[in-house]
Every structure is written in structure tokens, then in C-alpha cells.
């Protein structure tokens, strides 16, 4: 508990009793401010009344107990358990509302009560369901709207829609509506209790769709479709309740005006949550949820991103007690998945154009015709036809094709993941997941074939391509699309050569067909080709290809366009063109959000790509913002806690660290590492990557002991990969830095040397080129500290050549090169050229996107020393001051660094003949109480420690 114990209530002067009697709270606060042993005496003195004293003592005991008076969420639990509010303002049974006599309550809503009611119409007793609102309509305007809507609803007559009989306002001003009384079960209960098979369920659902469609044609939107509003009578007749009522009786009386009508969150479309316009597409969405629930028994829009079919237990009824034993996963997979997902599109325009179209697709499914939900429709339709007329392997291909829509997404995600993945990891992960996927399809597809006769995925692709090539009926465009898709499958199998042949064939087809460069087919084919080039280390060609495609992407909002922009962003990053990489990454993100919705998995992945890209380009402030959002979204959307999230957490930690936001860095690293560990041992090297990031941060914070623990574990893990691997070298680089920060130069030099050697061995792989350059610079720095100047000079000359080969591409290296060259000049007593180098280095450092404090400070220290040597002690003094302030502003945790900088400042002040200031600096440094053995010899001498 964070109580404020520093301020004592003034009611207790130490001397005598206050004139007014202190309150229980005053006594409590004064007592807890004291040490426990002092409390009884205090209470005895100030609270003689034993009853009050017992009270205070009970409070103190409660205060010391760590538990909370109420657990988080307990209020919610209590409120839920108590149940809905009772209708205090409702009328008792037997009273009248308009012409109706109320008989009994049959339902309770949030804002209304539903009664069974009767009236006499020409000698006949008419039973109705009467819905009585609890709140009156506020404004005359709302009342007019009520009458207008009510009129429209009375006109709506359909056998499957419960009729609205009449509406009005009762004597006390409460609006009511009388509806046809329906006795039945909710549709979800009905299909379960009657144990309907899939076909019967779909037939029933079609009836619902057609009724909704009829209402839509009368321009009435339901707005609140859900199982409890879709009843089935004992005769099996569907009846939709409450059509348009949500709008009519929006609980606020403001629904019509603010577009924030009443709805049920679980069934509401995204636009209802976001306050967008409610249209017929809103009902289509709700129908999608309903269909999902009818066939799977679960609400499918729970944000898990699972396909409807995956919710059905593989073996019947083993997982869930309410298992739908009458519908199997296999029945739902494919077309029905696609239909449900199309109805559930976040973007209303991407859903079925009407409930009638949805019904139409269900009917097509029921007679094994191609469904509209399966994109792209033309080739799919053609092939569904083609495949109906062929046998053998083609049957298997049919299944293969049926999953392509789903596979396309998986591939796309795998591609993003791959873009950040390590070369080695890349091939295996992707090939395994997609292979596993295809294999599972094959098992389903050709279960009737003996094992040894089942075709391999490669053979399948070849066979499918052959079919596509030989079929004279096939439209060239369809053929091209098929080739593209098959190429993607081949690529995901690691069959680059087969993929390239296929994709080239697709491009030729498209070309001959005169296809427009901005057509989805063309974009898809070129993206596929680009990815293939990128895969096979022809990134330059991929870059050119995407560059050529850019003009065609203008105004094209498709998945293909997103992929194209991302690929271009990646190839630009490879070409070290940070600005364009970030620009196009951001464009890809915007487009993804536009195409898939902000909260879609694809958008989250795209954002992650951009965040990792920013980090890779050392734009940590950008990376921090984007990745924070990704992680927050990941949690909010309830996405799985997997390796992708772990990677994201580690990169976010790094971005925070490097952009000077140390607050959560350690916790983020720990969380990311823990998650990596829980993912499994395959990602060992990623754990060591996380450990290194953590150690890097801890070294900056001068938490040397903790950093060493992390580094030791990283070293152990790296060792398992191989003694000579670059993994080991990367860990060694950090160990060297660990020693360097502790002024242990002999150890630092040794570790830099071996890291450099290991990296040199792996330099041709390209992956650790940057680290290799760093190792060279850091090593030469250590050599200078040890006075081994010739070796340092040789290394620096090499560094210069390396930088020369790649000018301007790595400003930090160039800056450090100048800083270290300055140090070398200093060590050789060439002070003027030293200052020139150091000035240049500082200039370059100031122009970096992200400040690199360690380089800047060490450059300033060297500059101070050079200025002292040049007897410009005044300049030296102000430079030393600047270095100290920069360090303190940026990382005040680094006490050792600060002490060293104060010692340096003291030396300047002495040189500047200001012993008094020097004494102050020394006192300040000694107050930091850093471990003496970690100070450099010079600093120790200055500080007289």
C-alpha cells in the first residue's frame, strides 16, 4: 500500500494532548506512521477510550494484512449473479395498456417488459405479446419518430416474421407495442433438441435469410438479430421477432439520432460498435454469426480468428458436452467456412450484398454448386465445374483447391513472418507449417486411397498445373490465376524452381490476355514472383519488379496491393533505403487497415512488420510507438501468446531501451524471454537473443551482476548452436562490452578479439556484417586503451576500407570510426588532428536518427583529454560539463559513468586553476558511492579512492 506516511497529522504535537479529540482516522494515520513497537504507547496516550482503541487497532491489523477488501471484478460478479433489474415501474398484471389487458410477464428486457396480453376484437379474444417500455420517450421529436417507424412496421407482413399489431403510448406516457404472440424455441435450441443434420439446419437458416431479405426490401433493418429473436415453433415454422424494434425503441430514445441504437454486443457488427451507419449489411453480419452458431454451436465472431469448422470437435463429442454430433468438421470446412466468413467481413461492402444473396449461396452449397464466397470466383467456378467431370487425382485436387482461399491467407502471414525471420529458421518453419497443412488436406482428400498411392504435394501441383494447361475450356485469365496459386504452393514447399516456372507461365498468360497491370490477377502474380526472387536472394530484382508495379497500385485496395507495398518496403530496407522502406511500410499498413479493418489479424501483422522494420533501421522512437500499439492490440484482441508475440515484446523492449524510455524495458524483456521459453526448445537462439537484449540494457543501467547472469545463460545457449557460430560471437561482443564498461580492458580486448575472429569466419553469410564492423571498431578501441597502437591502426585502416565500400550507409560506424581515430591520434600525441576527428565524429553522431549515448560520451571524453593536452583547459572544462549533463539527462542510472565524468571534470577544473570547483566535483563523485574497483586508475587517483 502506498500510503503517505511522511506527513503526520498535526493533531499530535509531541508534547501534550490536543484540545480536540482526534478522529479514528487521525489516530490510525498517526499510528501507522510510527514503528510497530511505538504504537501501543502512542495509542494509550492519545486514545484512552478502550473501545475506540480497539477500533484503531483493528484498522491497523487490517492495514498490515496484504489482501484487498474486494477482489478485482468482484463487483461485476456480484452484479451479474444478482441478475437483471426487476421492473419496479411496470404495471401489475390485470391492468390495462391501451386496449389490451395484461395477463403475465413473459420476458424481461433491459428497457422493457414483455407481457402476454389479450384484447377482444369483434367477439374474438386476440392474444398478443405486449412490449411495454419503462421509460417514456423524451422529446416530441422522438415520439414522432416512434409513430413513423411503427407505421412502417405494421405494413411489414411476412409469414416468417412476427407481425406487429399495434403500437402506442399508454396513459402514463410509456410507449408500447403489441406483437403477434409466438410460442417456440430459439433456433439454436431447436436444431439441437431436434438433432437436425447439417442440411436441415441450412434449410432452416435459408428461411430466416429470406424473411430478413423481405424486410430489407421493405426498407426495414432488424438491427438486433440473435437466436432469442429467431424462434421456431413446434410445427417447425420460423418466426422472427422484434423486427425494427431496436430502432423503434432504442433504449435511449436517442438511437435514431445518434446512430447509437440498442444492440447486443455479441451479435453486433463492427460498424455498430464503432457507431457507423446501420444498414442491411449489419443484419447480414448478424446472420453470419447466427449461421456460425447454428452449425458449430458456438459464436464464431469471438475475435479468435478461428474458422468455423475448426470449432467442431474432430472426434464426435469428445471435447464438448454439447457437441454437435450431427455436424462434422469436414462438412463445414471449405465452402461453409467461406460463406460464414464472408458474412462476417468487417467491411460491410465485403459482405454479401443482401440476405438473399446469402440464402442463395447456401442453396448453391446444398446442391453442390460453386458458392460465391470462394474467391476469386471465376477460376474457382470453372474448376469446380471442371473437377466435377474428372476423376482420379483431380478429386484430390478439388480438395486442394477448396482450401486455397484459406491457404492464401496462411501463406501471406507466413511471408510476413518470414521477412523478419532468420535465414536458417525461415525455410524450415514455413515449409513445415504449410506442408503440414497440405498433408492434412491430402489425408482428408484421399483417405480412400492406400497410403503409397497418395500423391505428394509436388506431384499434386504438377498434376494440377497439367490439368490447367491442357483444359481447352479454361479461360486464359483463370488459367493464369491458377498458375499463380500453384506457384505459391510450390514456393511454400520450397520448390523454387517449380514455382518460378509456374509463375512465369502465369505472367505470360496474363500478358497474352492483355490483362491490366492494376488487375488483382496481375498484382498477385507479380507479388508472387517478387517473393520468389526475394526468397532466392535476388532481392535487387524483386525491388525493381515492385518499383515497376507501384504506379499500378494507386487506388487499388486489395490484399495483393498490401503485399506488394510490404514487399517493396522490405526490398528497400535491404537496399538500406530507410526512408522509402518506412514510407512504403506505412503505406502498406494504412492499406491493410483499410482493406482488412484496423483490428484484423492482417493489420496487426502488418503493423508489426513496420515496427520491426523501424527497429531494424534504428528508428527506435517510431518502432516504440508502433510496437506498443501492436502489443496492446494483441492483448485486446486476445490473440494467442505465441512466439510472434514474444518476438514483438523483445523488439518493443529494445525500442524502449534505445529510444530512452527505460521504464518497462526489463519487464518486457523478461516477459518476452519467458514466453520464448514456453514456446519450446526450437527457438533457443531467440531466447539467447532476448537475453542479450536484456544484458545490453542492464549494462547500460550498470546492473553488472544481473547482466552477467543473462550473458552466462546466453553463452550457454549459444554454445549449443556451435562454438564457431555467430551466435557465440554476438554474446561474446556483449561480454566484451560488459568488461569495457567496468574498465577491465584486458578482458574486454580478449573477448573483442575472439568475437571478431568468429564473425570474420561467418562474414560471407552476410547476416552479421554490421556486427562484424562493430567488433572491429570496438576491438580497436580496446587496443588503444591498452596502448597497442599499431594493431589498432591496422584495424582502423580495415574499418575505413569497409566503410568506404559502403559510404554513408552506416553513419554510426562512420562516426565511431572518427571518434576512435581521434583517440588513436591522441595516443600518438597528435592532438590537433585528434580534435578534428573527434569534432567530425560528434557532428555525425548529432545527425543520427537515434542518439547513441555511449558513442557520444566516449567521443566527448576523448575530446576533453585532447583539449587538456592542448592546454585549452577552459574549452575542456565546458566539454566535460556537457558530457556530464548529457549522461545525467539520458541515463542517470549509470553511476559509474557519472562518477568517471565528474572525475574528468575535476581534472579539467584543476587544469583551469579552479581547485575549489574541482573539490566540489570530487565530493559529488564520491557521494555516488560506486564500487571503487570498477573505476579507471586515473579516475580513482583523481577521486583519491
Amino acid at each position, binding site marked *: *500500500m*502506498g*500510503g*503517505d506516511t511522511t*506527513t503526520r497529522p498535526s493533531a499530535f504535537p509531541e508534547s501534550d494532548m490536543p484540545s480536540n479529540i482526534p*478522529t*479514528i*482516522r487521525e489516530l*490510525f*494515520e498517526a499510528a*501507522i506512521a510510527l514503528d510497530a513497537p511505538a504504537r501501543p504507547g502512542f495509542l494509550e496516550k492519545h486514545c484512552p477510550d478502550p473501545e475506540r482503541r480497539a477500533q484503531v487497532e*483493528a*484498522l*491497523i*491489523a*487490517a*492495514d498490515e*494484512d496484504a*489482501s*484487498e*477488501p*474486494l477482489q478485482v*471484478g468482484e*463487483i*461485476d*460478479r*456480484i*452484479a*451479474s*449473479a*444478482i*441478475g*437483471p*433489474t*426487476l*421492473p*419496479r415501474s*411496470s404495471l*401489475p*398484471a390485470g391492468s390495462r395498456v391501451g386496449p389490451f389487458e395484461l395477463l*403475465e*410477464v413473459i420476458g*424481461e*428486457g*433491459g*428497457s422493457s417488459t414483455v407481457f402476454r396480453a389479450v384484447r377482444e376484437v369483434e367477439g374474438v379474444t386476440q392474444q398478443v405479446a405486449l412490449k411495454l417500455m*419503462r*421509460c417514456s420517450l*423524451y422529446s416530441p421529436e422522438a415520439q414522432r419518430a416512434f409513430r413513423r417507424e411503427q407505421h412502417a412496421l405494421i405494413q411489414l407482413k411476412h409469414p416468417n416474421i412476427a407481425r406487429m399489431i399495434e403500437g402506442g403510448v399508454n396513459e402514463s406516457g410509456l410507449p408500447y407495442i403489441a406483437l403477434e404472440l409466438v410460442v417456440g424455441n430459439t433456433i439454436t435450441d431447436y436444431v439441437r433438441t431436434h438433432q437436425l443434420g447439417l442440411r436441415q439446419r441450412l434449410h432452416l437458416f435459408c428461411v430466416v435469410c429470406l424473411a430478413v431479405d423481405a424486410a430489407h426490401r421493405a426498407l426495414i433493418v432488424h438491427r438486433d438479430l*440473435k437466436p432469442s429473436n429467431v424462434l421456431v415453433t413446434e410445427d417447425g415454422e420460423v418466426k422472427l421477432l422484434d423486427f425494427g424494434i431496436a430502432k423503434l425503441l432504442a*433504449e*435511449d430514445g*436517442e438511437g435514431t439520432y*445518434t446512430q*447509437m441504437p*440498442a444492440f*447486443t*454486443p*455479441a451479435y453486433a457488427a463492427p460498424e455498430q460498435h464503432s457507431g457507423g451507419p446501420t444498414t442491411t449489411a449489419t443484419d447480414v453480419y448478424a446472420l453470419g454469426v447466427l449461421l456460425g452458431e447454428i452449425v458449430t454451436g458456438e459464436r464464431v465472431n469471438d475475435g479468435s480468428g478461428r474458422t468455423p469448422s475448426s470449432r467442431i470437435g474432430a472426434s464426435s463429442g469428445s471435447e464438448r458436452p454439447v457437441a454437435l454430433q450431427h455436424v462434422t468438421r469436414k462438412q463445414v470446412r471449405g465452402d461453409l467456412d467461406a460463406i460464414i466468413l464472408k458474412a462476417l467481413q468487417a467491411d460491410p461492402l465485403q459482405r454479401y450484398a443482401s440476405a438473399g444473396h446469402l440464402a442463395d449461396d447456401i442453396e448453391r452449397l446444398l446442391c453442390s454448386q460453386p458458392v460465391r464466397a470462394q474467391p476469386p470466383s471465376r477460376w474457382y467456378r470453372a474448376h469446380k465445374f471442371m473437377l466435377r467431370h474428372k476423376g482420379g487425382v483431380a478429386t484430390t485436387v478439388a480438395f486442394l483447391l477448396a482450401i486455397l482461399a484459406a491457404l492464401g491467407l496462411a501463406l501471406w502471414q507466413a511471408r510476413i513472418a518470414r521477412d523478419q525471420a532468420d535465414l536458417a529458421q525461415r525455410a524450415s518453419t514455413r515449409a513445415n507449417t504449410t506442408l503440414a497443412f497440405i498433408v492434412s488436406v491430402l489425408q482428408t482428400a484421399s483417405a480412400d486411397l492406400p497410403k503409397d498411392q497418395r500423391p505428394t504435394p509436388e506431384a499434386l501441383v504438377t498434376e494440377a498445373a497439367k490439368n490447367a494447361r491442357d483444359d481447352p475450356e479454361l479461360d486464359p485469365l483463370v488459367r493464369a490465376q491458377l498458375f499463380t496459386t500453384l506457384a505459391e504452393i510450390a514456393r511454400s514447399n520450397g520448390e523454387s524452381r517449380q514455382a518460378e516456372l509456374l509463375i512465369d507461365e502465369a505472367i505470360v498468360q496474363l500478358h497474352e490476355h492483355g490483362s491490366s497491370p492494376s488487375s488483382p490477377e496481375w498484382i498477385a502474380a507479380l507479388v508472387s514472383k517478387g517473393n520468389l526472387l526475394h526468397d532466392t536472394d535476388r532481392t535487387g530484382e524483386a525491388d525493381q519488379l515492385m518499383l515497376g508495379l507501384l504506379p499500378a497500385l494507386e487506388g487499388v485496395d486489395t490484399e495483393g496491393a498490401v503485399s506488394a507495398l510490404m514487399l517493396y518496403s522490405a526490398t528497400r530496407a535491404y537496399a538500406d533505403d530507410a526512408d522509402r522502406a518506412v514510407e512504403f511500410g506505412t503505406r502498406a499498413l494504412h492499406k491493410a487497415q483499410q482493406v482488412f479493418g484496423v483490428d484484423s489479424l492482417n493489420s496487426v501483422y502488418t503493423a508489426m512488420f513496420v515496427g520491426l522494420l523501424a527497429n531494424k533501421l534504428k528508428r527506435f522512437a517510431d518502432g516504440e510507438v508502433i510496437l506498443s500499439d501492436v502489443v496492446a492490440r494483441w492483448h485486446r484482441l486476445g490473440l494467442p501468446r505465441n512466439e510472434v508475440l514474444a518476438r514483438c515484446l523483445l523488439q518493443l523492449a529494445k525500442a524502449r531501451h534505445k529510444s530512452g524510455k527505460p521504464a518497462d524495458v526489463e519487464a518486457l524483456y523478461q516477459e518476452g524471454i519467458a514466453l520464448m521459453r514456453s514456446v519450446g526448445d526450437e527457438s533457443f537462439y531467440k531466447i539467447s537473443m532476448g537475453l542479450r537484449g536484456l544484458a545490453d540494457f542492464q549494462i547500460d543501467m550498470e546492473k553488472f551482476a544481473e547482466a552477467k547472469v543473462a550473458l552466462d545463460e546466453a553463452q550457454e545457449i549459444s554454445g549449443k548452436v556451435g562454438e564457431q557460430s555467430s551466435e557465440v560471437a554476438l554474446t561474446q561482443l556483449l561480454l566484451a562490452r560488459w568488461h569495457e564498461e567496468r574498465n577491465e580492458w584486458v578482458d574486454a580486448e580478449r573477448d573483442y578479439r575472439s568475437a571478431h575472429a568468429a564473425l570474420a569466419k561467418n562474414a560471407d553469410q552476410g547476416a552479421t556484417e554490421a556486427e562484424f564492423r562493430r567488433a572491429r571498431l570496438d576491438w580497436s578501441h580496446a587496443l588503444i586503451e591498452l596502448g597497442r597502437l599499431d594493431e589498432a591502426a591496422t584495424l582502423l585502416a580495415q574499418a575505413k576500407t569497409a566503410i568506404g565500400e559502403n559510404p554513408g550507409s552506416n553513419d554510426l560506424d562512420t562516426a565511431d570510426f572518427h571518434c576512435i581515430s581521434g583517440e588513436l591520434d591522441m595516443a600518438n600525441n597528435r592532438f590537433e588532428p585528434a580534435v578534428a576527428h573527434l569534432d567530425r565524429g560528434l557532428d555525425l553522431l548529432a545527425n543520427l536518427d537515434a542518439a547513441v549515448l555511449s558513442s557520444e560520451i566516449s567521443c566527448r571524453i576523448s575530446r576533453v583529454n585532447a583539449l587538456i593536452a592542448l592546454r585549452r583547459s577552459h574549452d575542456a572544462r565546458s566539454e566535460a560539463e556537457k558530457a556530464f549533463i548529457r549522461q545525467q539527462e539520458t541515463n542517470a542510472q549509470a553511476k559509474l559513468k557519472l562518477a568517471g565524468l565528474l572525475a574528468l571534470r575535476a581534472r579539467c577544473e584543476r587544469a583551469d586553476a579552479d581547485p575549489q570547483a574541482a573539490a566540489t566535483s570530487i565530493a559529488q563523485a564520491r557521494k555516488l558511492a560506486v564500487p571503487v574497483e570498477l573505476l579507471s586508475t586515473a579516475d580513482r587517483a583523481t577521486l583519491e579512492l
Partner: protein
Amino acid sequence: MSSSSTQPSPPEGTNALFAQVYDRLKAMAGKRLAGNARETLDTTALVHELYLRVGSSAELRFAHPNQFYAYAARAMRHLLADRARDRMRLRAGGDWIQVTLTGSDSRLALDSAEQALQLEDALQRLANSDARAAQVVELTWFAGLSQEQVSETLGVARSTVARDWRFARAFLKDQLGR
């Protein structure tokens, strides 16, 4: 504990704003619970949702967002207590409405109602002892505000809120016997 022994102040009938906040939260909560009986009611989410709605309506005007939360937290607290009392009365057969609850739900509902009334009772006592501390609890529990937001709403220093909370925490734990 019987429901008659705890009589928290009724919703401030004189205050039209309060009454409206109360009614609307009640309608929203009722709707949530009626929509899906298994759904857990998220009271603080309701308060925030209402806040968003109020932002776009002319009928409820608050001088400052802070004022809204003070009202809403109080309304939510009363709502819970009122509902709990309703539920207890039902057990006594004191109401005309017949509510069919399944056996276990009924037991749980009654236990929870009793718990809610104990809570309300403890809050009342706290308010008698230290009104501001009680309000801090109200804002924290029923509107889900952080200590910082509470300090903003009440216009007092953070350290004061922390002190209020510490006292309130001890007080309530003592009262609730946990």
C-alpha cells in the same frame, strides 16, 4: 443481515441529472444481463460506455467530465444496492412479479445480493466516518478510475487520495471481516 437494517440514501431524487444517469445505467445494465444470462456484467465498462454516449447527447450536460464520473459511480453503487434489495424482497415474496430462477442460480443470486448489501452497509459506515474516503472507494470500484483520475475528479492531491484509500481499505476490510 436483513435488508431493512441498511437503508442507504435513495438516489438523489431532487437532482435530475443524477436520476437520468441512474436510469440510463440501469437500462444498460438490464439489457446486458437480459441479453445473455451467462455474461458477466462489466460495471465500469458500462459507466464508460454511458460516458461516451453522453458525450454525444444534448440532454445530459456536465460542467466537466469529472462530474460525470462522480455521478455515475454513485449511480452504479445505488443501482447495485437497489438491485440487491429487490432480489431480497423477492425472496420474501413481497413483490407481485414471479421470477423463475433455477435452484442454484437462485441461491447464488441471494447470496450475492446479501453480499452486495453488506458492501453497501460498509460503504455507508465509511461515509459516516470519512465521506471523502468513501467517495474515493466509490470512484475506484464503480467507475474503475485510477488513483490519478480520482485525484483529478475530486480535485485533491494524489497523496491525499492514496491516504484516503489506505484508510478506506483498512476500514472496509475490518468491516467486511476479511
